[in-house]
């Protein structure tokens, strides 16, 4: 869109961070545009992660990440309850497997205290095996972190974007920004949809945040994509564990974990590989093999269950050990880069922090006349009442009683809703992320064609 009338704020990137900032700005009397090169929100780092809401117990004490993760945990937990995003407080158990790791558990507890999280505690090996009877043999010590939670990662971006759009934020999908230049009193963004002018620009470009940063004359950090491969196991494996099973973290990575998902699967991963290509989300035989070896030790019975999916995501790692957030008053530019694997947890706190700083830097934050309305998302979690088991819903509309994706129990009504929602699915990935259709163990053997046909007739002009 070429528009003489400039926006107040343009946000580059509609991942979980960009959409959260869009949602935060929607509370004020501002013309905001959210620009995303992909055809959907939350398709980069935001879609392929371990789906854990962290307490921040193991972040770097005193870092911005530590503060924002702790605040974000609180905000996201409350938001999930309000919007119906599936979230389960399963808790985590951090397990040591040798004397050296056991010796470091006290450090873990001290770090947790320093991060303001006071509920982590040592448990005995007896208690560990009572909690996690399927755990592999040889554990030498354990710490519980009762507030670590699991969440539906895809719903967060969709919910934030839906709320923002409902409150007047303009969402432009399939629009790639290639350059920024200074206009007389605003920024001119060159995009695949023409020039876009904005007084303020927010860089929430995730894996590309260092490249975008350079357009604004900054070079505080560089992104090295860190690939994380993950294996999703069949739901029949879910009874094998009750909480998230964490390893003792090292300097470089949190290590390979085993976690339940809110959909009732079990996740094993991630790997941590620094790679040059910012698009390379391919899995590798070495990666899969390494995860299975780790999984066999942590939860031996797990590897006998069927694998439902294998995927990889890229984290926006930098040479620094903290988020790269800076608000430049004179330039009216906010950089929200280097948001690592904790970004989903921290997203709402990051948005709160950045927008407040932008206000301090001169952005007028006048309350909008109407407060944004928190959207109500369809229930995707196994703990909630899903459409197929909701008698009242089916009585009102039999489409919710017509199951199209058998493995995941997704109904015709839910697929229809996903295709017709305010931020609709426009491809199979979008349908999957909004409904779980075709994400199950058969991977489309039964329903792939039927779901694709519904999609084709919905998006056909």
């Amino acid at each position, binding site marked *: 869109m070429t528009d003489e009338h400039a926006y107040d704020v343009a946000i580059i990137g509609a991942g979980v961070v960009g959409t959260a900032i869009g949602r935060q700005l929607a509370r004020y009397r501002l013309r905001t545009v959210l620009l995303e090169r992909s055809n959907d929100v939350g398709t980069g780092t935001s879609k392929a992660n371990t789906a854990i809401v962290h307490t921040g117990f193991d972040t770097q004490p005193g870092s911005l990440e530590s503060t924002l993760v702790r605040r974000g945990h609180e905000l996201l937990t409350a938001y999930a309850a309000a919007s119906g995003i599936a979230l389960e407080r399963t808790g985590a158990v951090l397990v040591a497997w040798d004397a050296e790791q056991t010796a470091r558990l006290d450090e873990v507890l001290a770090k947790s205290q320093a991060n303001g999280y006071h509920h982590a505690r040592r448990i005995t090996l007896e208690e560990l095996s009572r909690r996690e009877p399927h755990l592999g043999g040889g554990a030498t010590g354990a710490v519980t972190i009762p507030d670590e939670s699991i969440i539906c990662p895809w719903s967060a971006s969709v919910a934030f974007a839906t709320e923002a759009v409902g409150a007047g934020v303009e969402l432009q999908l399939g629009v790639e920004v290639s350059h920024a230049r200074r206009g007389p009193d605003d920024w001119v963004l060159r995009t695949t949809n023409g020039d876009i002018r904005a007084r303020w620009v927010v860089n929430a470009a995730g894996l590309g945040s260092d490249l975008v940063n350079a357009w604004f004359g900054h070079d505080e950090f560089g992104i090295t994509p860190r690939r994380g491969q993950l294996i999703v196991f069949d739901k029949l494996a879910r009874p094998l564990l009750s909480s998230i099973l964490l390893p003792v973290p090292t300097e470089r990575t949190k290590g390979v974990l085993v976690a339940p998902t809110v959909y009732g699967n079990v996740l094993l991963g991630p790997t941590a590989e620094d790679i040059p290509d910012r698009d390379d989300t391919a899995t590798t035989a070495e990666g899969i093999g390494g995860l299975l070896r780790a999984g066999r030790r942590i939860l031996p019975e797990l590897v006998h269950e069927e694998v439902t999916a294998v995927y990889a995501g890229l984290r926006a790692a930098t040479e620094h050990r903290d988020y790269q957030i800076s608000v430049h008053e004179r330039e009216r530019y906010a950089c929200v880069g280097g948001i690592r694997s904790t970004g989903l947890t921290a997203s709402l706190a990051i948005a709160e922090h950045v927008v407040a700083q932008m206000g301090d830097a001169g952005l007028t934050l006048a309350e909008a006349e109407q407060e944004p309305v928190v959207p109500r998302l369809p229930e995707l979690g196994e703990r909630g009442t899903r459409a197929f088991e909701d008698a009242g819903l089916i009585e009102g509309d039999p489409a919710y009683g017509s199951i199209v994706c058998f493995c995941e129990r997704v109904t015709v009504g839910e697929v229809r809703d996903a295709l017709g929602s305010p931020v609709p699915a426009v491809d199979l990935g979008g349908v999957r992320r909004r409904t779980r259709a075709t994400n199950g163990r058969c991977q489309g053997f039964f329903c*792939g064609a039927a779901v694709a046909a519904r999609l084709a007739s919905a998006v056909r002009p």
Partner: protein
Amino acid sequence: MSRTVLTVDALVVGAGPAGLAAATAARAGGAGSVVVVDREDEAGGIPRLCAHTGFGMRDLRRVLSGPEYARRWVDRAVACGVDIRTRTMVTGWSAPGRAQLTGPGGLLEVDARAVVLATGARERPRAARLVPGSRPAGIFTTGQLQQWVHREHLPMGRRALVVGAEHVSYSAVLTLREAGVRTVALVTDHPRSQTFGLFDLLTRAGLRVPVWTQTTVAGVYGHDRVDRVLVRGPGGGERAVAVDTVVFSGDFIPDHELARVAGLAIDPGTRGPACAADGATSAPGIFATGNLVHPAETADIAARRARSAGAAAAAWLRGGEGRHERATVRVRVADPLHWVVPNMVGPEGEPLDPVLVRTRSFLDHPRLDVTQGGGLLASYRLRRMIPNRSHHIPSGWLGLVRPEEDVLIAVAAPR
């Protein structure tokens, strides 16, 4: 929960050939109310989606297309007084024999005195085979492909690789051909094709589709759409094959969720519920049949074998509660054998059907020894064994099994 409760004598889960045959046999055996539920729009199971001919030879004694064959079984079941309910899915159990269902009419609970599980099998998808690479469009199983082409008429690519060289893989080649897609090759880890010689010959010579043997798929790549598949040949060398479509065929696993959730003992070979020749499982009153227990046979074999499960369910209803002796002896196989069905033995009487045995690798002139506690029950010499195909051995030894330790079937060492 506001579920409508329906009380029946027998609930059959799955209206494919096996489920319909079991339901028909249950009615014939005197069962009063027999309800078959299926989550699909139409009853008839997988054959509905198979446009090609060759169905019905072993059970209906005629040669029919898949949809015609499916129709025959539906008609036959309805004529016997079986109540078929489609678009109705069992989503779980409230208690043994009490199934929770969802359909467009709302939530249902079926309270059945006997349950026959006939939920079938599916092909292992790409992820379950741990094939690395990216996740573009253009990756199918045969089942998905058939519905894509024959039911939804969705657009297809131009060049395909078919992973697998068992019967169903050749069916995938035909479906691709109908959709105007050229199959570059079939790829199999095994040293030879596993289908009938005639199919193999017609495909290689007639359709000019080669079979790349001792070849593994090492990766699937592409951004939006598949653009290449990495294959590793017998020498270990890898090369990229330019295709836009990959079909992962065969490698069947039972759709065993309801069996697992019901807590039934699972056979490690088939991964379906362990069951006796009459379909009796480890749980009283729950029977299993069809490709859920022998993944996967042709429809006619599944239907033929399902009769005994239906008859056993009817016998159970007639007062088989007296049959307290559960089938407890398990029958196991030793490598390289893959599975055996039946894989449990109880006091079920003379079985109607032969025992099915499968191997993981090609075997020439193997001798199979059936032993229990070191004592030989039977010994059979076969001409050859081919992976992904069942081999029949007589069932006489089932009568010799003592209610003690497990039975083992193993390939005797060559002398």
